[in-house]
């Protein structure tokens, strides 16, 4: 999973935009504004990546993280005179792991700080995976750190583990707070595990995650007060604090200040809601100067609809058409309480939107492109279908005719730009074989192995499609995908 571009955030369902791209006739009657004379023209002109937008590559990010980790090791090395005896070994290991924990939580928060170069370069979905993987690792390190320090100190002080634990908790500065923090992190780690996640509502899980900020704050002071690397080293204390402060500022800036500024500047609001297919709705969103957001087709926003029942949670939905200057569209499948409530949104409802995020955007090449959509995964692909440069083939997998969203729009775009659309509808038997087999893909798309591929759909479909594309000879770095997993 190295250079495969993909993204997704929590429960992304769909999205769209202001110029319902290809066919002006698809604007729902329920949408009161803007008046038809202002309706944007169908947009099929190629949209390339904004040249001025910074993107961090996976390798670049990894290099920075590893360099930081080496610096942390250097800090330990510099502050440790030597390791002697069992107590020394245990304490030393505990110190190294403790430093890694303190560094790791900063990295984990930074990955989720919505930094635009990371969002555009790696994609929200891969950042979330790194965060989840790293989170499990850091929580394990926290537990190991606590156990090793207690054990190591007990051996050194010739005390038993229980009384040493009591000593640590009651006599060492801020260790009690740090212990609370450790249990918080452990609890959050447990509820984030896949098995537990399935039994929790998304919102519950999301809010529990905010306790990590509390945990990090509680754990911070014991690092400086008890950490052998910091007690006598003012410079180390300074740089360590600077690291925490930097990430705090980034989080506040990109997760709070920028969205507030966008809210004031762009004045997002609901224009209307339209049912696209059973259980699939589009929400038309108006606003001012939306072109200044630099949103690209294929990206998404986190939307917080300011109604009595919805204001407290934000959800990621892709734009389902290229964004216009005064309107965007998202398309959502009914998957939870939240998306059901969206169907009842009234025109004029204000929206707090964070974004744009996501790396499933047009590449730089003029090679042919194949888009593979599964179910409501069509939404971001619908947006880039109209705007990708080069020859485009869209393959749209749906379980029944009724579930096909945007059929009129897709056909109109295909006609306007001379693109090809294949609808693969129904069971395997009805289609006449595995719709996502390498052979089927090759027969549908001549010259497939020379093309870029974009995949979006449910997790099972996405991984099957990516595997089939690889088997059909498409290089990994040319497969861009996004999954709907958290």
């Amino acid at each position, binding site marked *: 999973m190295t250079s495969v571009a993909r993204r997704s955030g929590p429960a992304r369902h769909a999205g769209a935009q202001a110029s319902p791209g290809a066919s002006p006739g698809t604007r729902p009657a329920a949408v009161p504004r803007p008046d038809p004379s202002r309706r944007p023209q169908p947009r099929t002109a190629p949209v390339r990546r904004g040249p001025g937008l910074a993107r961090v590559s996976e390798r670049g990010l990894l290099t920075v993280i590893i360099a930081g980790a080496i610096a942390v*090791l250097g800090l*330990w*090395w510099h502050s*440790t*005179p*030597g*390791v*002697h*005896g069992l*107590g*020394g*070994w245990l*304490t*030393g*290991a505990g110190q*190294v*792991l403790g430093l890694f924990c303190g560094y790791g939580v900063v990295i984990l928060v930074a990955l989720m700080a919505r930094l635009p170069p990371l969002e555009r370069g790696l994609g929200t979905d891969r950042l979330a995976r790194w965060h989840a*993987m790293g989170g499990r*690792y850091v929580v*394990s*390190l926290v537990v190991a750190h606590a156990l090793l320090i207690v054990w190591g*100190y007990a*051996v*050194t*002080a*010739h005390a038993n583990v229980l009384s040493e634990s009591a*000593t640590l908790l009651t*006599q*060492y*500065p801020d260790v009690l707070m740090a212990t609370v923090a450790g249990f918080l992190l452990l609890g959050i780690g447990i509820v984030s595990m896949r098995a537990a996640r399935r039994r929790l509502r998304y919102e519950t899980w999301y809010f529990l995650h905010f306790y990590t900020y509390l945990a990090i704050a509680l754990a911070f002071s014991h690092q400086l007060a*008890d950490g*052998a690397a910091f*007690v*006598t080293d003012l410079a180390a204390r300074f740089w360590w604090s600077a690291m925490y402060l930097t990430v705090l500022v980034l989080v506040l800036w990109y997760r709070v200040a920028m969205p507030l500024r966008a809210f004031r500047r762009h004045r997002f609001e609901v224009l209307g809601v339209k049912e696209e297919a059973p259980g699939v709705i589009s929400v038309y969103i108006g606003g001012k100067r939306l072109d200044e957001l630099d949103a690209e087709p294929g990206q998404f926003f986190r939307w917080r609809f300011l109604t009595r029942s919805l204001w407290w949670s934000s959800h990621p939905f892709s734009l389902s058409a290229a964004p216009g200057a005064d309107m965007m569209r998202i398309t959502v499948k009914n998957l939870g309480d939240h998306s059901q409530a969206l169907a009842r949104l009234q025109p004029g409802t204000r929206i707090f939107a964070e974004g744009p995020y996501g790396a499933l955007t047009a590449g730089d090449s003029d090679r042919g492109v194949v888009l593979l959509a599964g179910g409501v995964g069509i939404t971001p692909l619908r947006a880039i279908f109209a705007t990708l440069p080069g020859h485009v083939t869209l393959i749209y997998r749906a379980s029944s005719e009724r579930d096909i969203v945007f059929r009129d729009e897709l056909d109109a775009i295909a006609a306007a730009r001379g693109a090809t659309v294949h609808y693969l509808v129904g069971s395997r038997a009805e289609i006449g074989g595995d719709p996502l087999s390498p052979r089927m893909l090759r027969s549908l798309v001549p010259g497939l192995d020379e093309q870029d591929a974009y995949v979006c759909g449910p997790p099972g479909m996405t991984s099957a499609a990516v595997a089939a594309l690889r088997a059909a000879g498409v290089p990994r770095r040319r497969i861009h995908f996004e999954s709907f997993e958290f």
Partner: protein
Amino acid sequence: MRRVILAVTGTIAGLVALLSFKSHVPSSPVAATAGGPGSGSSSASSPSSASTSPPRGGGQTEAVPGAFPQGSLAGTLPAGETAVNGKVASTSYGPVQIQLIERSGKIVKVAVLVQPLNTLNDIQIGKFAFPKLISETLTAQDAKIDAVSGATYTSAGYVQSLQSALDKQH
């Protein structure tokens, strides 16, 4: 699963490698005596360069739990007893300096003038190490005593400071 095993074994292997490098580092845990020649019998001065925490002497020593004399006893001695300060031995954890109390050429007490107090762990180590070192000293009446396990550096600093006091005494 493979990733989990990789992460666990990688972390443990890395830790063991890192720590084993450090465990080979110093052959002599105590740097050559820092600080000038220990002064006469009543002064508890220690050079500021040797110390990262303010050296403590005399009655200003803050209370550190532990059953051994801390701070100079020079002002409280009965007639016939004299105090001799050792040099400040600087260890990686901080400076160590002791004071001998002798009567008729015999060591009767040892006080700790300076000890590493940077972390509570240092204090804890001092709490169990110094009483042992002192009682060994009183038994042996010289500086040929064993290091206390778990307090290698502190023991070495203690012995070095003790030796310098004995040298001065004779």
